[in-house]
């Protein structure tokens, strides 16, 4: 992060998506789609039991529909949270699509979005087939996963580009180690650093990740109250908004 940008606060993308300015709306849309396309695809696969191609097709069509100003303006920040509105919107969209099947070719005439559905499918494979899935809970979990993945990628990019690769490697070795996490002593030996430095690096990386995630969460919420609600779901705390 450059000096001038740090620590930055980006405006709410979900509010900007309702803007009258085409450029602002498209920029906001890109931020929303980055956070939501995987959860939407997986949700369609599991909740609506769509096959890979159909889920990919619906995901494309749904986000292209989302880009339409009138559609996003049907969301009222005063009346509901964006994530809930989006999930309900997917259900309505699928039902409409099924009714219209055979009458319309989905996404006809619209440029497809560049989304790696095969990657999402690979992540989904261990869960299939699923019969006892709670759709709403699953959507929330995948949304959290997508947010964390984006945040971790941003953390890595910042640490490595700013000469703090060691901090990233310590964080990766600890918090992205899967089930079996190394002790501080093991990390100290592996990275030839005192244990105090290991804990310092780890604390700083976690703090930065939390900050990145908080900023992104603000983008995806339309009010302080919505942010507080989502922060509680995501981190288990209300935050301080």
């Amino acid at each position, binding site marked *: 992060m450059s*000096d*001038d940008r*740090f*620590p*930055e*606060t980006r405006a709410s993308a979900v509010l900007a998506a309702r803007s009258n300015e085409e450029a602002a709306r498209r920029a906001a849309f890109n931020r929303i789609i980055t956070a939501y396309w995987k959860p939407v695809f997986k949700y369609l696969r599991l909740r609506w039991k769509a096959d890979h191609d159909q889920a990919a097709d619906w995901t494309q069509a749904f986000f292209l529909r989302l880009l339409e100003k009138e559609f996003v303006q049907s969301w009222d920040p005063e009346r509901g949270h964006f994530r809930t509105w989006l999930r309900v919107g997917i259900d309505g969209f699928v039902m409409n699509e099924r009714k219209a099947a055979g009458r319309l070719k989905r996404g006809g005439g619209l440029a497809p979005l560049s989304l790696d559905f095969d990657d999402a499918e*690979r*992540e989904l494979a261990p869960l299939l087939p699923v019969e006892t899935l709670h759709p709403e809970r699953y959507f929330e*979990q995948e949304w*959290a*996963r997508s947010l*964390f*993945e984006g945040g*971790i*990628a941003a953390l*890595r990019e910042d640490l490595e580009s700013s000469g703090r690769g060691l901090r990233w490697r310590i964080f990766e070795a600890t*918090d*992205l*180690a*899967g*089930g079996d*996490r190394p002790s501080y002593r093991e990390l100290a030996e592996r990275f030839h650093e005192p244990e105090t430095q290991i804990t310092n690096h780890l*604390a*700083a990386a*976690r*703090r*930065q*990740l*939390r*900050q990145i*995630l*908080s900023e992104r969460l*603000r983008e995806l919420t339309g009010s*302080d109250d919505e942010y507080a609600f989502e*922060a509680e779901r*995501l*981190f*288990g*705390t209300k*935050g*301080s*908004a």
Partner: protein
Amino acid sequence: MSPLSDADLVHLRSVLPDTEPRYRMLEQIGAGGMGVVWRAHDTRLRRDVALKVLARAQPGPDAEARLTREAAILARLEHPGIVPVHDTGRLDDGRLYYVMKLVRGRPLADALEPSTSAGQRVAILLRIAEALAFAHKAGVIHRDLKPSNVMVGDFGEVLVLDWGVAGWLGERTPDTTGATPAADAPGPTDPAAIDSTDTTLPAGRTATGTILGTPGWMSPEQTRGLISQTDARTDVWGLGALLVWCFTNEAPQVGANGAIHLPPKLPRPLKSMARRALAQDQRERYAGTDDFLSDLRAWRDGDRVSAHRESTPERIGRFVTRYRVPILLISAYITARIALYLWRRI
């Protein structure tokens, strides 16, 4: 990057610190050589504030000491004319910051319009001088008075800003004699000029070869690098400069012999005040801000200004102006009595 496993997701959700950043940065509203000022949102108290943070390119203990000192000075000065400090801390990247009230208003230059009366201009000067007098009583000197460091708030409040080169009265600070402003030194309104000094280091530590204040707005002792000689009279010089500026929109013009060229449109008593405040020799200036304030109030109230030797017509004019209501009443009474007398004679 491989997908985030359930185990890592659960782990991360449990270990990330639950401390939300207290301040969300909204936009950069100022920058100097030492620090950057942001408009920020205090997420705990839900209000916007101004947050001054060290620039990344200025790390090190000296820069931190300067910012800490600036915050400590401001914290001591609780006065309506001085921006209060709310908080200090460090950002996640370790940079030191302090938080102060966000001033909503206009710089002095924008607040004064051609239609602004002399009385209103002096009223603003009075507020500035009162803030300075308070600071001096608290043992602090500003040392960088200039129009861009004065803000007039939306509700008429007048605030003296940027105490970045302020110092403690009586502090022993080595001089930087010989350090004269470079020819291309920043102009009076260049925000970078505010931080163009290293002389606000902790007492006894001064970087040589630097200047203290803003070229064009520095007192003679500052210009000569005699930092140890800066005292309350240095701010008196600054007040004199602001007095001139408030009526002319120009910084005082100092001649080669040190004489101050004052514009003819400045009222004569104020001209005398400016001349005394802007004296080259500190001993010839007002002894302190209180004396300057007394003269300013005297001019406002139509009293005699101590710095000005009045001519007889001036004294009569001031007397008439000050007591114009009773004089008018008495004149009307006398006229009426004369008229009554003449009418009875007829």
